């Protein structure tokens, strides 16, 4: 399952962030991520060249902001510091807009694009994890704490992929609760001769 997710093409901000978080939490995954990228670096070196415009170099030189940003987080939000660095970097200096539902808080991490959503889900100890409300598959990555359902306990680093007909009642750990990253991607419909096959493949 993890292998599937790690080798899925990422061509959206949501899917890339999700994949990076998954890679960051589990060291083994991080190396797989790096292995993939090394393969791409290898091919980048060997691809044929396409000439760039004569003025591109000047544009680069003239546009460079030479000031370097200060990159150390001195004032650490206790909540943020539990999250993977990938997310911390993304959320730096941004206000997180939490929406509360009983004992669960949900915040959108990215502006919604097409049928993709990336959300942070903060589950209080013992609280029920909400089922997503729209069509599609949801990949849920445990960032902190754990949750359980009828089938088992899911700890930090595990990913569960749930389709919209999924039937279970997940509950946050009674002691630690759970913080999760939910990546929802709606079903993409393909039409035409290869429609059926591509629907299977894409979903």
């Amino acid at each position, binding site marked *: 399952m993890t292998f599937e997710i790690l*080798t899925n093409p990422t061509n959206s*901000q949501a899917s890339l962030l999700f994949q990076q978080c998954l890679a960051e939490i589990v060291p083994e995954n991080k190396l797989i991520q790096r292995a993939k990228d090394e393969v*791409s670096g290898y091919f980048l070196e060997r691809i044929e060249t396409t000439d760039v415009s004569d003025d591109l170099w000047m544009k680069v030189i003239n546009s460079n902001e030479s000031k370097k940003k200060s990159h150390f987080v001195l004032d650490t939000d206790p909540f943020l510091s539990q999250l993977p660095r990938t997310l911390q970097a993304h959320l730096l200096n941004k206000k997180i807009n939490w929406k509360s539902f009983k004992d669960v808080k949900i915040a959108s991490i990215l502006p919604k694009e097409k049928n993709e959503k990336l959300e942070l889900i903060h589950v209080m100890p013992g609280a029920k994890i909400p089922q997503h409300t729209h069509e599609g598959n949801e990949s849920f990555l445990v960032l902190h704490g754990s949750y359980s359902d009828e089938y088992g306990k899911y700890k930090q680093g595990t990913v569960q992929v749930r389709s919209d007909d999924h039937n279970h009642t997940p509950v946050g750990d009674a002691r630690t609760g759970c913080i999760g990253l939910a990546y929802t991607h709606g079903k993409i419909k393909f039409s035409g001769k290869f429609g059926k096959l591509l629907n299977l493949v894409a979903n």
Partner: protein
Amino acid sequence: MAKVKNPFIEALAKVAESQDISSFKKIFDYFSPRLKSFLMRSGADEAIAEEIIQETMTIIWTKADYYDPKVASPSTWIYTIARNKKIDILRKSRKAILEDIDTAILPPVESKADENIEHDQKFEMIAQYLDDLPEDQLNLLKMNFFEEKSHGEISEITKIPLGTVKSRIRLALEKIRGKLEQDGTMANLNEGNNSSIN
């Protein structure tokens, strides 16, 4: 036989330490035309491709001190910057969301241009492994990671069964991962801990 250190490691270090323009030009001259091919192949038109290259080069210039030669080879580091930038720019909102995810909360790396630091050959070993792979296997890796095709699409295109596609890619990735875990410096290799270097 000792392999020569990748010249871009030194170039990046010089950009980081002293904002050396000629080193930066070397990086630009080598990588821009290759990035352009990569970006246009993956769907960007010429103008957008050059815009992405321009922003990638700016990131390299301002964040060269974050490059760690122990973590990735120079082309890999540059590839990931361009790939992230491509995703940011090709989205409707164009927000630079992915630009800082690797550097915003990590401290810069200390200078790596030091000749006394043992040259870690693990990246050359990975390149050698890829050089030696049968072409159709190498192609699977290329389609999945460099061309961003899904396993299903690859199976469709190559007519290789889906399960076989997955297991071959998995095997290759595991091998490469294993090489990343090793310390590829001369001292370690001479102790016979790893397979022989050629």
